[in-house]
């Protein structure tokens, strides 16, 4: 008796589901047969950072080709680091045309999954995985940092201040690129300026960021550029607090536009930000893959030339004059007339 009721219930459920499936199968619009998937890290697609940026790039790509969200382009949220391999593999099993993972956290998982699915095409952002079926997107951080260095140098010069600061998360070549670019940018427009450099040894410790910001601001720093992730939050807090009291100090954001993070009252202590355009990277590679030109095994560098780095579109804290000078430098670097070194001068 009991079994029969269960069987009936199951049948009913199955019927409901098949009903749904049939409804979805009706084609809606003309579109290319192309599927792209994003595996997010634990941040999720609304993290206001890499995951969100990458997703925006994919959405833009999807919109341009009439793709349907959820079937043609979609994302899988990772709840923990242990989900990276299963999530990437799930998309690979579905045979999506391109599978994207943002951030260096995916380095190991991507290497592993790319080996198990040699037929699938993968893209990793902001780190390098050397496999024939993986394209790695990296950024010319030193070029973007040069631009914010120019902005900082000009702003300090205009306000009669001569000390600037750089706050790094941990000291290794990637973060030194930010330092190198920033220093060269400042020196290009303001050779007499002094630049204080400190590394916090941590990317997730706001208290350490605030301690170092206090140290640098006390030593006279007028503007600090951070490449320190969450540690930089403490620096922004210190800049806000001082500016609010009338002791104007600036912070420069990193990776994304951090203007809103610096808001106090109707102003913001964030002068500008050095943005990595992960959206541009994701959109570009998706398009290339659709066109049959998947650049597997290569490292694509997103620089000023292809709008892969730069300052935000709107910079309420910068004068039009400074913005135009920054843009001039951007063109010089993009055209190859000016070369920015990746290594800080000792």
């Amino acid at each position, binding site marked *: 008796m009991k079994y029969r009721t269960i069987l009936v219930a199951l049948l009913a459920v199955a019927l409901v589901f098949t009903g749904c499936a049939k409804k979805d199968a009706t084609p809606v619009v003309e579109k290319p047969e192309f599927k792209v998937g994003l595996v997010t890290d*634990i*941040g*999720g697609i*609304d*993290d*206001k950072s890499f995951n969100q940026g990458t997703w925006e790039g994919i959405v833009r790509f999807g919109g341009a080709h009439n793709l349907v969200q959820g079937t043609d382009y979609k994302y899988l949220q990772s709840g923990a680091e242990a989900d990276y391999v299963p999530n990437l593999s799930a998309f690979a099993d579905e045979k999506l045309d391109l599978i994207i993972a943002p951030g260096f956290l995916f380095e190991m998982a991507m290497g592993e999954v790319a080996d198990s699915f040699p037929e699938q095409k993968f893209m990793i952002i902001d780190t390098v995985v050397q496999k024939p079926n993986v394209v790695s997107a990296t950024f010319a951080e030193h070029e973007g940092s040069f631009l914010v260095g120019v902005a900082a140098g000009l702003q300090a010069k205009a306000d009669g201040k001569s000390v600037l600061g750089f706050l790094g998360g941990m*000291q290794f070549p990637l973060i030194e690129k930010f330092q190198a670019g920033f220093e060269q940018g400042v020196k290009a427009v303001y050779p007499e300026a002094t630049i204080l450099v*400190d*590394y*916090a*040894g*941590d990317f*997730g*410790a*706001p*208290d*350490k960021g*605030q*301690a*170092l910001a*206090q*140290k640098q601001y*006390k030593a006279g720093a007028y503007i600090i550029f951070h490449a320190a992730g*969450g540690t930089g*939050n*403490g620096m*922004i*807090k210190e800049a*806000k*607090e001082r500016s*609010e*009291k009338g002791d104007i100090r600036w912070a420069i954001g990193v990776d994304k536009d951090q203007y*809103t*993070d610096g*808001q*106090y*009252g109707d102003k913001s202590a964030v002068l500008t930000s050095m943005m990595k355009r992960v959206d541009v990277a994701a959109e570009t590679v998706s398009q290339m893959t659709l066109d049959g030109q998947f650049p597997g095994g290569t490292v694509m560098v997103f620089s000023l030339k292809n709008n892969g780095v730069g300052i935000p579109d709107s910079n309420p804290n910068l004068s039009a004059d400074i913005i135009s000078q920054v843009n001039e430098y951007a063109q010089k670097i993009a055209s190859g007339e000016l070369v920015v070194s990746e290594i800080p001068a000792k």
Partner: protein
Amino acid sequence: MSIILDMLPISFMFAAPIIMAALGGLFSERSGIVNIALEGIMMVGGFAGAALTVVLEPVMPGMAPWIGLFVGMAAGVLFSLLHAVASINFKADQVVSGTALNILATGLTVYLAQIFFNQQRTRTFSAGLRKMSIEGLRDIPVLGQIFFEDIYPTFFVMILLVLGTWFVVFKTPFGLRLRACGEHPQAAASMGINVYKMRYAGVMISGALAGLAGSAMVLTQDIQYTVTSIHGTGFIALASLIFGKWSPWGVLGAGMFFGFAQTLSYYAKDISFLAWLPNEAFYILPYVLTIVALIMFAGKTVGPKAAGEIYDQGKR
């Protein structure tokens, strides 16, 4: 000398939340319940404090962070009740229950942030707690500059808490009963003390103080609550508690010492006789100094005898 004057206020900034949370641990452990959930409680307190500040700031900009601190405290109490129920009523292993709370806090705060703010962290608050200067006192030579100029109000709250803890634990009947429950609960019970009640009090006070520490940390040092806002400070607080031999003065000293060591790691490269060391040496400095100090000064660090033991009324 001027470098020391620069360093001290920064050390205090680091030390305040460590000491507050360690005082919380003191209440709990003195009552006989090991509380390694300080980290998790701080996270919950930090989240609640930041979330409330974000919501209230547009309405009442001056009061919002103070209400945030209070709500952080309340959230800490509520969260610590889980530990109390598990380890007092259900007689669960206190270390396991504490670990569970730490893990739960990470997920819970991110989950709640997702519900309230639709992102994995709280929105950014505009000011949080600001540094302040005390007119009059700031003009005292040297001391004024260290203690009364550009200092977070949470530093003074912390000092009051140290005094308060000392008074309550060592000078009141409540404190005596609390300590008795931590040393020999069966003897305490034979004198008519309700061990369960005292332990509940200990854990809840620890929740309040750790919650306060968490919200103070986020509201003074950060611009929003993120999952890395607390980043191990609760465990440093636990170390300070042991290092400070379960006494409020010891905790004050240990916390200050840790804050100073942390600050020293950032100033070392400007101090000529330390500047030759590599960067990494400075990052481990606070931890190495803590271990060295533990070995040198601690001797026998004897905690409350019954801490960590499940209370069994029938035991002799």
